[in-house]
């Protein structure tokens, strides 16, 4: 059952080929068998999953099904789940049992989804390798000595190894797309505001966005249909009609104009990475798409702008962790300041502390104009570059990540080199655009991905581009040997 896509499993449940309980037990057994090695889950919610599966089987028998009835899904441990630990990959929240459930989780549950558990991640979603997690690194199922990417590394790895048929992720600077590329799965970051952030632990609020991670674009379309929509509890969620994403997959793509930003194929880029993405673009040309060259001159400043804006917002968001109301509290504080300082210093890991310090510095008196204000100005230049490109093209394409999965520990002591893992993904977050990563071949047995970026609210179109590509290629169906495949 685990070699079937979510869409195929949905059909199997509808046909009565298997029950949701059988399906759920199958994935729980795979998690038990393989996750000791992979470390992709922080918490497995077995009892709850089986209860949800039984309820789904009753709903199916009664003919009362939702979009996701009976389908097992793993949630990133950044989404609050009432009664279940929500750690965000941090010692700070190691004992935090959320008192309420995130809108994304609620919406999927109300469509009948079964929650398998909570997936491992970089601490507070700050990282590109899943090595900053308090619960230890996740391994890449394609090579256990390599990282799965991050920050949604647990989600991507469990999905890559088919320990879950689908997963949720969040993407602030590439945290869905980069691990999707490194694990041979499809992952979509929607338009900023398309999916509610309520109950999603905040990292950088003007950039954070939740999205689906699946085995195919079709799976992502199915999940996004359940996830998207306005939420009055998130004032940044946009009150705009949700498109028919599965319906969008039926549209013709002949005449589609693909823009190739020259900045996504710099001279310094690994030739094999460039070749795989160019080959994917050629497949789409065969299907009738036109290709034109475009330029995004300011995108070279996206990583520097991001590393001011994201840490600045993080330093503010993470000030709530003070040892008073919830989360880690130090022993025997001698006064209030000692309580704050020791609780925070014990609860946060090194990368989180670094980003809080950078953000605090950038916002401090005398530096605000040089850093934060300037970064927000550059952010507008980047957005305007994209807007100009979208006057001429329908989608933009290029590699998702500049390299395949790197060795565990390879960049651990070099933050700036780690930050460059997101060089092609960050601009999209700064501009608030939707983008997905799809599998487009291998280099020395390691997966590579290609990014498809769309205009605002054009999730249906980029899912359709990926879907058309996946109908004529089978990269997305390749499985790692880990997990007993092949």
């Amino acid at each position, binding site marked *: 059952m685990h070699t079937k896509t979510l869409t195929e499993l949905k059909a199997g449940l509808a046909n009565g080929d298997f029950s949701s309980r059988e399906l759920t037990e199958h994935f729980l057994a795979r998690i038990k068998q393989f996750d000791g090695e992979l470390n992709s889950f922080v918490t497995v919610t077995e009892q709850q999953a089986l209860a949800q599966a039984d309820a789904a089987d009753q709903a199916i028998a009664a003919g009362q099904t939702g979009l996701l009835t009976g389908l097992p899904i793993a949630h990133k441990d950044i989404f609050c789940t009432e009664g279940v630990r929500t750690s965000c990959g941090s010692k700070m929240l190691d004992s935090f049992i959320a008192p309420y459930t995130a809108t994304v989780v609620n919406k999927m549950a109300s469509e009948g989804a079964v929650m398998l558990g909570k997936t491992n991640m970089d601490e507070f979603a700050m990282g590109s390798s899943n090595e900053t997690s308090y619960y230890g690194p996740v391994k890449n199922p394609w090579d256990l000595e390599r990282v799965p990417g991050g920050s949604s590394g647990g989600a991507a790895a469990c999905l890559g190894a088919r320990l879950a048929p689908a997963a949720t992720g969040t993407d602030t600077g590439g945290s869905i797309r980069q691990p999707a590329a490194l694990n041979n799965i499809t992952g979509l970051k929607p338009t*900023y505001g398309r999916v509610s952030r309520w109950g999603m632990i905040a990292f950088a609020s003007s950039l954070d966005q939740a999205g689906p991670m699946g085995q195919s674009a079709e799976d992502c379309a199915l999940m996004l249909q359940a996830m998207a929509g306005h939420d009055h509890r998130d004032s940044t969620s946009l*009150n705009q009609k949700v498109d028919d994403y599965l319906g969008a997959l039926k549209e013709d793509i002949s005449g589609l104009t693909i823009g190739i930003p020259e900045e996504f194929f710099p001279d310094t880029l690994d030739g094999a990475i460039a070749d795989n993405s160019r080959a994917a673009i050629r497949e789409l040309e065969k299907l009738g798409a036109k290709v034109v060259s475009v330029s995004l001159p*300011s995108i070279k400043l996206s990583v520097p702008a991001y590393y001011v804006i994201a840490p600045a917002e993080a330093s503010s968001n993470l000030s709530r962790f003070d040892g*008073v109301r919830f989360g880690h509290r130090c022993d025997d504080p001698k006064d209030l*300041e000692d309580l704050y300082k020791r609780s*925070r210093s014990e609860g946060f890991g090194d990368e989180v502390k670094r980003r809080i*310090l950078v953000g605090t*510095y950038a916002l401090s008196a005398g530096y605000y104009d*040089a850093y934060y204000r300037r970064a927000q100005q550059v952010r507008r230049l980047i957005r305007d570059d994209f807007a100009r490109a979208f006057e001429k093209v329908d989608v933009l394409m290029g590699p998702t990540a500049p390299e395949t999965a790197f060795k565990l520990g390879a960049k651990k002591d070099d933050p*700036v080199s780690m930050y460059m893992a997101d060089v092609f993904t960050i601009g999209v977050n700064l501009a608030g655009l939707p983008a997905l990563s799809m599998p487009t071949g291998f280099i020395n047995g390691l997966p590579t991905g290609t990014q498809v970026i769309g205009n605002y609210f054009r999730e249906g179109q980029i899912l359709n581009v990926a879907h058309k590509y996946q109908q004529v290629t089978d990269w997305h169906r390749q499985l790692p040997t880990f997990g007993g495949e092949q």
Partner: protein
Amino acid sequence: MAIDSKVVAQVAHLARLKVDQADSDALSSRLNDILAMVDQLQQADVADVAPMAHPLDVTQPLRDDEVSEPNIRDKALEIAPAAEDGCFLVPRVIE
């Protein structure tokens, strides 16, 4: 704008973080690496460019001034590290 151990100590205090003296030099050096990368922003010509806070220039909506959320005080206090009589407990602040 290089930062040294002294600046690290000041910023750490603002962020209510404790930095051990032993880690301070290594931390300063990492932070300087990050700030050196970030300094590329100084190349940008941003004269007359308005800072952008939201990509779609959306403004925050207003809602009616009515109670919309339930009172979950007891649930919130249950997960507090220390609470008593409906209040969070902190070390004595006022003598």
